[in-house]
């Protein structure tokens, strides 16, 4: 029993000597190893009388050591981990590893915005062709050969054997294509965005640009429906306060025809440099589909009426993003394109 007491006392002293995992392990060997103090105490059991008490005492001592050992080990490991973590500290202000961000061209953005808006109103996006016949681009739109209104659209005709083919000058070709494709010759609701080409180039004209055409055919659609539709569209695209104004005009494929002005979104209609002090900006051409156009594509103009509208997508992109020169849009300077690299706030 004295032995036990002696070792217990020694243990108290040895506990203080433990500073790290290695010295802790040394103590474990010293106490619980093959020749450890506590192991050796076990051997003494043969020699004592009160074996039961002795055994209990040794066990208690072993327990004490083990408790000490486990607690100390955990504490030391925690300490070691903390030290390790400190060493692993990094400079979180260093640059990240990532790929460059891509960007979607403003013309795609505006096209998708318009498509979404019209699709939500039940329109189908109709894909047209860029090479068209004179017939589809002009004649079936009520512009026979030699018609003076062709002047407004200087045309790229194709060479020789494709003489009667051209690069479409307007997405209005989609009116003809969609009507001809409709076997039932019944109601239609389409928009057609796309590239168009005119033999003309300066600061406000590019020989290639983009338009979107809309067409609704039904038994009872009127100019009032056209106005309501364009009001809704312009409000969504240019802001809820936008007002829409109809001015009579002329397009061979619509009758009546109107130019559509919107209240200037920059000054709100007070007059500024953008609207040339008028408070209004011309944005669309529209009208009721000319009966000749309906008939030429197989529609019964007695039964069906339609309205159509068209506008330059480039113009809207220029308004929306404040781009002053159309040539910037097709210039493909990456410093321009990269500006359109994030999700837009679409309220």
């Amino acid at each position, binding site marked *: 029993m004295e032995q036990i007491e002696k070792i217990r006392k020694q243990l108290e002293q040895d506990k203080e000597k433990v500073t790290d995992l290695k010295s802790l392990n040394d103590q474990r060997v010293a106490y619980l190893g093959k020749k450890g103090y506590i192991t050796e105490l076990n051997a003494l059991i043969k020699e004592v009388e009160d074996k039961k008490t002795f055994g209990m005492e040794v066990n208690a001592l072993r327990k004490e050591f083990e408790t000490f050992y486990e607690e100390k080990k955990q504490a030391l490991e925690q300490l070691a981990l903390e030290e390790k973590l400190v060493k692993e500290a990094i400079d979180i202000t260093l640059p990240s590893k990532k790929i460059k961000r891509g960007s979607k061209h403003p013309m795609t953005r505006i096209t998708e915005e318009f498509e979404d808006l019209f699709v939500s109103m039940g329109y189908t996006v109709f894909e047209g062709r860029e090479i068209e016949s004179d017939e589809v681009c002009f004649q079936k739109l009520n512009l026979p050969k030699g018609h003076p209104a062709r002047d407004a659209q200087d045309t790229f005709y194709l060479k020789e054997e494709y003489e009667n083919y051209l690069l479409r000058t307007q997405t209005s070709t989609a009116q003809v294509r969609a009507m001809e494709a409709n076997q039932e010759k019944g109601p239609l609701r389409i928009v057609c965005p796309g590239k168009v080409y005119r033999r003309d180039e300066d600061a406000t004209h590019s020989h290639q640009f983009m338009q979107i055409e809309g067409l609704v055919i039904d038994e009872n659609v009127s100019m009032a429906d056209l106005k309501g539709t364009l009001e809704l569209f312009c409000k969504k695209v240019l802001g809820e306060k936008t007002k829409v104004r109809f*001015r*009579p005009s002329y397009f061979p494929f619509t009758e009546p025809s109107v130019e559509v002005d919107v209240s200037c979104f920059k000054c709100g209609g007070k007059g500024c440099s953008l609207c040339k002090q008028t408070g209004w900006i011309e944005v669309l051409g529209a009208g009721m589909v000319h009966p000749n156009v309906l008939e030429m594509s197989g529609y019964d103009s007695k039964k069906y009426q339609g309205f159509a509208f068209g506008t330059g997508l480039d113009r809207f992109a220029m308004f929306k993003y404040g781009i002053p020169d159309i040539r910037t849009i097709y210039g493909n300077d990456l410093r321009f394109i990269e500006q359109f690299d994030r999700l837009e706030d679409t309220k």
Partner: protein
Amino acid sequence: MKLSRNFVKDYIDLDDALSIKDIAEAMTGVGNEYDSAGALIPCTKLITGEVLDCYDHPDSDHLHVCKVDIGKEVLEIVCGAPNVRKGLKVIVAEVGAQLPGGEIKAGKIRGVVSNGMLCSKAELGLDHKFLEAKDKDGIHELPPDTKVGIDPIAVLGLDDEVIDFELTANRGDLLSILGMAYELGAIYHKKVKEMDCTYQSVQENITDQFTLKIETKDCPLFLAKKVVGVTIKESPDFIKNRLIASGIRPINNVVDISNYVMLETGQPLHFYDADRLGDTLIVRNAQNEEKLTTLDGIERTLTEDDIVIANKKGSVGLAGVMGGLSTEVEADTKNILIEAAIFDNVKIRKTSKKILRSEASNRFEKGIDPKRTYMAIERSCHLLEKYADATILSGRVTYDQIKAEDTVIAMTQEKLEKVLGISIAEETMISILEDLGFTVTKQEEKLLVTVPTRRLDIHIEEDLIEEVGRMYGMDKIEGKLPILKVTVGTYNKTRREIKNKLVGLGLNEVFSYTLISKEQARQFTADNFTPIEIADPMSEERTTLRYSLLPSLKAIYDYNKARNRKDIAIFELGKGFFAENGYQEQEKLAALLSGDYYLGIEKQKFDFYMMKGMVEELLDYLGYQDRYRFVTDQNMPKEFHPYQTAKIVLQGKTVGIMGKLHPNIAKEDVFAFELNLDNILQNRGSRMTYKEIPKYPSMEKDVAFLVAKDLPAEEIITTIKKAGGKLLQKIEIFDLYMGEKIGKEEKSLAFNLTFADPKRTLTEEEVMEIFHKIINEVETKHKAKVRDK
């Protein structure tokens, strides 16, 4: 069309209280847009004066110091004009006057005070074509009897206002003062006044001495009259000033009258020197290669699409476009043959596009009211008698195949409401139509509207609806939302997703031109195709429709590179064109990559395998996983690196190309690919269906082979796949080694193989059996050795 307010006032009473802007805006409101509206002479604070005294400037060899009486005071003005002198009546711009050249300020000129400016006509803002040499060299000399202290513009007769209209192509009728008067009359509810076409004629009859032969269907109406004994001189001021306000240069009284009548009626006239013309006039189509010298002295070569006027000797004028030199009215002309005709508008358009677009040809193109043809020839006789001392022969040579009559169109209130979406009272409709000069009679529910011949643009009920609508006010239409059957709108989602994917992969979308040069069109492709060219290109750079998008991307790369841009990753989705059974359009996707892809401290440049990864990612995303291959080929476009380029083959069909650009065309490492989306998307059929998640564990084995350096990895994979059978689920190459530890002509490829059976757990023995079989196969087939670890 420039509208002179003074001119139109001959035919309609316009309230003086209306400003020219008011009138212009009112016209815009009914569909006639204008470019500008304002005073013909846009100047303020001008006053007539008399030079009381004029002496040389003490400090200058050409300046004069003048004392000028302007009625209310006498001004001291320094003037540099050589013609300034004592007693002259002059145009004075007072201090504060606004002139086109700027504001007049008081100041000292070389030490002498000058309180204003003496003006030349040039300084008043008249277009140069209206100025004579004396108007540019010196100040304007007003008539000696001019009062001092009044408005000099009124003295000059230039106190007019002008609206410059940009008319729509259908309103040919508005290319005349009369047409404008009718339109303004409809707006302001005023009646149009009659035109004076009266004159005396003598016994002598044109039909006795003149023969007209119309030998073409392109001239449905031709009228001729003859006047004799004209005096060629300057026109009276009112004619000159109205021509100037209308943008036409006065020449002499006879020529001016032909222009004046054209402006009034919209009918172009042509005056021939009757003696030079002879007694016969023929209208016919030109012969191919026929030559004619026009008024401007240029010899023209004609085709059978041109209409010519000829006499017995040959052609003397290009009908509707330009007269000929040989029969022109000149200073010694005495007798005149007047032509008033209508020529086919399409033919005139063709000819004038080729030769000259003139005031006359523009009117022929847009169409002419046949009644005006008659009116114009009579009016010109009236004016020639009055202002050129002409004696008018009786009779008229007439060829008229048109026999124009007013048309009657029926319209209903119901239809108008159906088209416009608003209801307009019948009385309102009638009064609008009557204001426009139409006659309306009621027949039950219908209105029968008689449309005068001058409105060539009105044919159908919808045209009348537009007339009523535009005068009523298109903007009074209240917008409403159409009530239509519910339908589902659709759009091309795939295209959008492709763009999103590429943007997500870090690429910037570009939009380039379809038209490129002939040389470019053949680049970046080894395909055998027929390019499509433009008949009349704007420049050498834009002659051909592109087949591949890559030439455009390369140009964009060069553009940005030249602006010190190093990292370029761009793509475009657009059409490629070629001729085959007509013309073909195919949607293509192209991308070009150069510079760094990964950013940060450990930047990483683009390489072939990154590009390959993008192509795979896109094709896999579109549902083509394991259905495409990359193959090399001898026949690669010369713009690509011959040993770092692959064709992309999808289900046996080449659908694209990818590779490094040839160092000949790009010094840096540039990679590019192009996919034919139409071909790729043709057979899309990947529906997503659920596959059961494996219940049993899989087993993995690694092996590295030493093989010949030039052996494509794909061949080993094929062998492994074949030997591995059904239980081999996945093969992955995880290491490539070439270097000192192995032979010079060798490479080591390490594979990770995954084995599994969805129905049970595999045993080590059976997997090892397959594994050894694989090793065996690869070793024998590819002369490979397993590389020891």
